[in-house]
Every structure is written in C-alpha cells, then in structure tokens.
C-alpha cells in the first residue's frame, strides 16, 4: 500500500485531468472538472461522494458509456498504455467486457428481461472469445455457481425477474466477470440492497478480488462500505477530487473539511452516541454556477480569504496523501482533533494512538 502517490509502476489505468461538461438549457454543467487518479494492479480504489459529485460520470466517461451529443470530454484515460479516448467504437467494445467491466446499482440496466440469464452470460462469452455454444453454456453455469447462486444449472434457465434483488445482483456480477476482466468498476453495487444482502455481495466482491486478482473501482456514498473494501480512497465534491489517500489516512487523518463533515454526519455504530450529528450546513453548489474558488468554501466553517481561489490537489502532509484545501497541515490537525473529539466522543488516547501509528 506504499505505492499510493503518483507514478506507481504497476498502474493499470491512468486518468489525467478528465473534464466532462454537458450543454444544457440552463448553461454548461461541469460534471467532472479536472479529475486525475490511477489504479494499480490488484488494487481497490474507492470513490466516495454525494449525488452530483461526479463520481459516476467519471467512471462512465472512462468506460466511454456516455452517449450524449451534448457531452464534451477532455483529458486522457490510459489503460495499459492504450489511450481509451482515442479508440473507435469497435476497439472500445473489445476493451469493455473483456478488460474492464462495470456493474451498476440496478441490475436491470445490465440484464435483458426477455432472455434467460444463462443465455445472456453465454452470449457475452461468445462475443469476446471463440468457444462453442456448449462450452459457453458450461462456463455460464460455472460463473453462476462462482457468484453463489444455488442450483446454477437450473437457475441458468430462469429469467431475470425470477431472481430476488440480491440474487439478480449476483447474476450481474457473473455477467461482468464472464470474460475475466482485469478491472471491475462497481457503481453503488449494494445501495439498493438490505444490509444482510449487502454483506453477502461485499463478501463476494472481496472473494473475487482474491480469486481472480482483479482491480476494483468502487463508487459509493457509504463511508462504511469504503472503509471495508478500499485500499485507497478518492473523495469527490462538485466534480473534483478534494482528497485522495490510503484508506487509513482518509479515515484516521482526514485532511479536507468536507471529509470531516462526511465522517461527522454519519450516525455510526462503532462509537458512543453523540448528542448531535455534525451536519454540514447548506447544500452542494449548482454545477452550472460553480464558484470561482473552492467549491466547498460556502459550507466550510474554516474558510478564509484564500478560499476565493481554487485550491490545488496537493500533498500537504508529505506522505502521498493529497488534499485540496488551503489550510496548513498544522491548522488541519488542530481543527480535526477538536472536531472529531467533540463529535464522536473519542477518548484522547485513541487519537494519540492513531497519530503514533
């Protein structure tokens, strides 16, 4: 987990200064505004943010899945030395599915309701590889078994609506895995599911990560899910990454006031119950009228003159942990310890222990 700062050798996917805008009646929506990150081999990157923060649009753009004449893209997306932005439709289709696969919150976006699930998986296998029908069917059943669907031979002949929500999610994962992708992009894969079913699906994704050695990009709004799954975390706000670091850095030494706000807003089960939750006041800015400076400044309790200019995403701590906030590392440490102590009722020793580690 040391190769977190820029320039790790085993990087599979490199996104540099990605910008996505949409022309709308109300003006230009800057959905993604200069996002850069990379994904290493076998690594799990968590992208967290609230609705409209640009986390899904970022990954949809990486997959070139946004087909909208009003959308404009800039920046580069390099997958194993290949610039995905420069590929034509056919070449992109070869990457999608066999190299990079995506799963969504709603499995019905990936599954066709009028075909049997076994057929759909076999079809996908045959589209990417030269195998016989019988072989593809056999592999489809194997995949259904691998994602933990009971009686896979029989269930392969069922239609998507025959499956429960959790089981349907498993079918979609089987479909995504059918061509052994190196990268799995999971966009809120468990948001629509109950907690006990969510636990099953998260356990499944973890198992697949070890068994197949795939890298995972996990898009979610749930800080608990990120803490459990990710090696590294990027926090997005209003189309930009505002903080980026290892999962332990983000949760134990968060640098950006927005991240503090996110962590303070959660009613968490692992801490004594606070009197009040530390809500972030206000609402995110409109993406058509982004302020000239820091997009979070308006809601930030620590803003000062300098916040009128956009803070660059920069390593201010000196350990590869990037943040986009003008406050100095010392000021942040001071604010943070007050805030987290106050909000979570954490004993002093715990904080000290964290900083020593």
């Amino acid at each position, binding site marked *: 987990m040391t190769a977190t700062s820029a320039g790790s050798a085993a990087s599979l996917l490199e996104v540099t200064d990605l910008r996505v805008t949409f022309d709308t009646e109300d003006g230009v929506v800057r959905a993604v505004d200069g996002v850069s990150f990379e994904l290493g081999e076998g690594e799990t990157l968590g992208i967290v943010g*609230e*609705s409209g923060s640009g986390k899904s649009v970022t990954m949809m753009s990486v997959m070139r899945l946004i087909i909208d004449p009003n959308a404009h893209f800039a920046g580069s997306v390099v997958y194993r030395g290949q610039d995905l932005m420069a590929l034509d439709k056919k070449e992109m289709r070869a990457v999608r599915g066999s190299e990079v696969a995506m799963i969504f919150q709603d499995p019905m976006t990936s599954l066709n309701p009028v075909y049997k699930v076994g057929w759909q998986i076999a079809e996908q296998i045959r589209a990417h590889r030269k195998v016989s029908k019988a072989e593809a069917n056999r592999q489809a059943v194997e995949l259904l078994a691998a994602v933990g669907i009971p009686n896979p031979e029989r269930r392969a002949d069922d239609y998507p609506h025959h499956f*429960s929500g*959790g*089981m349907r999610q498993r079918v979609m994962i089987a479909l995504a895995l059918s061509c052994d992708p190196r990268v799995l992009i999971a966009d809120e894969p468990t948001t629509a599911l*109950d*907690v*006990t*079913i*969510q*636990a*099953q699906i*998260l*356990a499944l994704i973890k198992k697949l990560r070890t068994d197949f050695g795939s890298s995972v990009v996990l898009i979610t*709004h*749930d*800080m*608990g*899910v*990120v*803490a*459990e799954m990710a090696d590294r975390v990027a926090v997005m706000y209003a189309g930009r990454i505002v903080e980026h670091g290892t*999962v*332990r850095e983000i*949760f*134990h030494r968060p640098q950006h006031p927005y991240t503090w*706000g*996110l*962590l*303070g*807003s*959660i*009613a*968490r*089960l*692992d801490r004594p*119950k606070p009197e*009040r*939750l*530390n*809500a*972030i*006041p206000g*609402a995110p800015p409109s993406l058509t009228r982004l302020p000239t400076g820091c997009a979070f400044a308006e809601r930030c309790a620590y803003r000062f003159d300098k916040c009128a200019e956009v803070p660059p995403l920069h390593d201010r701590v000196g350990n590869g942990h990037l943040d986009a906030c003008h406050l100095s590392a010392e000021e942040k440490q001071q604010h943070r310890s007050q805030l987290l102590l106050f909000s979570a009722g954490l004993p002093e020793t715990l904080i000290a222990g964290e900083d020593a580690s």
Partner: protein
Amino acid sequence: MTGADAGVLLRADKVRKYFPVPGGLLHGRAVHVRAVDDVSLDVRVGETLGLVGESGCGKSTLGRCLLRLHELTSGTVTFAGQDISGFTRRAMRPLRREMQMVFQDPYASLNPRKRVGNIIAEPLRIHRQGDRTAVRRRVGELMDLVGLSPEHANRYPHEFSGGQRQRVGVARALALHPRLIIADEPVSALDVSIRAQVINLLDDLQDTLGLTYIFIAHDLGVVRHVSDRIAVMYLGKIVELSPAEELYERPVHPYTEALLSAVPVPDPDAAATRKHIVLEGDVPSPVAPPPGCRFAPRCRYATDVCRTEEPPLVQHGGPAHLAACHHPLNVG
C-alpha cells in the same frame, strides 16, 4: 386515559394485517401475504420508538396500521386510551390532526403543481384552522420552524433540494400540532450530509414541541441515534424490543446480532478485525412463512425446537428487553 395506561400514547395489541394475493389459491384456500402478524407494542408519550428491519419485514405496513391508514385484519390499536381499530373514516378525521406521517420520498410526497406554501397550508384548510391571514401566518411560522425561509412559500417543490423538500414534508406534518409523528424512512433518500441536518431537525422539534415519534428505518446507525427504544422486525413479527443502547450492546436475538454485524463500519481497522455474520440465503416469502421461528432457516443457532415451536416475545436480559428466541444470546 386510565391509570394503568398512564404515559402510553399508542398501544397495538395483537395487530395482524394480511393482504390477499390476487388470484392466489393454495390447496383451495385463499393465499395471503402476512405483512404484519401478531404485533403488540406500546409507544409512550415523548419517546421515539424505532422500527427496524429489512425490506418486506412489515415495518411500513405496521406504521400504516397504527395510523389506521390500513384496515386491520385483526387486533386493536388504542390511541390516547381510545380504541380506534373500529373507527370509520369520519370518526378518524378529528384524530388525524393528532397523528401525522412523514414519508420517505420528498420527491413523490409533494404535489409538484402546488406551491409549497399551499402544500403546508392544506391540512390547515381541510381542518378549517382559521381564516386566510391566520393560515398564511401559520405557514410562515412552520417554515421558519423547520429552517426554510418563509419568503420561499411561493416556490414549487422542484425549486428545492431533497433536504429542503423533506423539511416541507415535516412542516406539513406539524401544521396541526400533532402529538404523534410516524416517520417512514424520512432520511433514506437524502445524501449523507443532508441526512444529518434532517435528523438534527427532527431531534430539535421533538424537544421543543414534545412530540412522540415512531421512526421507521432500515439504517441501524440512524435508528440508534434517534430512538429511545427499538423494535426489530423480521417477516411480519417483532423479534426483539429493547431500550436502544441495550440492543446495540447486548443483542439477544440472533437476527439482531446478524443485522448489527452486517453494517459496514467507517473505520478501516475495525472493518478488518470485526467478525461478520453473513446470513445465508434470502428472507423467506411472507405468504408461507416457515413454521416455528421464522428466522430458523437462516439462523446459525437453530435447533429442532426452533423449527417446530414458535418462540414467544418475552423478557430476556434487562427488565424492558424482550426477544422471541429459544436460544437467546447475551443473557445471564
């Protein structure tokens, strides 16, 4: 209110709500979804009772039964000492003032063609609470109370963000000075940072107005934060009912234990060391629930008795801690 019931605002006694399955016949008998099956509970004045459970456990249906938005299949609901289970719509009407509901989806529960001022004023007009000026003044007060600026009364719901819309929903529910508010997943559709704002608002309103809440949610963190007592439901039944902190510290029912362990914790180190109980399979169909304990097919402690005999909801652990289990955890 009788002496024995002092402090109890709402009481449910053996409430059942079965929905017929259209066209469903099993062995020649009509088939029913047993959404709520024999539920008894008390809600005390000024407290927040949390109702948790996964989708389909019957928590929303129970909430609606308590408000008499559903006809009960059997059982009784008593509100402020009055048995309201047999009340007609007309008889219920004056009581509607005292019990209100806040819904999950602030996008679906507000009429998009009406200005929010009119939305909030609607209960006042229906119950004829004062003339135009009085209504307008009250709407301003209410908007102020929930943290909206009264100047925005002329705007339409789509001009507000999700969190603000939920505030409109809360203002509407408060319009008639209710005593009881049933909030059905009031924050699940909101983003995390906004969620905390609405939870704090509900907290403050309870303090200033002395409200009683029934808070229905699937998010165990949120429920712990707001509730004094919590009822955990599974397949139409209450499996555990306990003071909030006790439930989290010493869950008695294996389902509660599994539910708590399944919640991802926002701490990467704890996440790595925490033991997870991953439940196998899905929730069985409420049309034909398993015999005996309904959780038995997914329970890792289940024995023969669990599969044949239904455990009653009785005291285990603390004096106010009830659970329905043959093999209670964390007791003695």
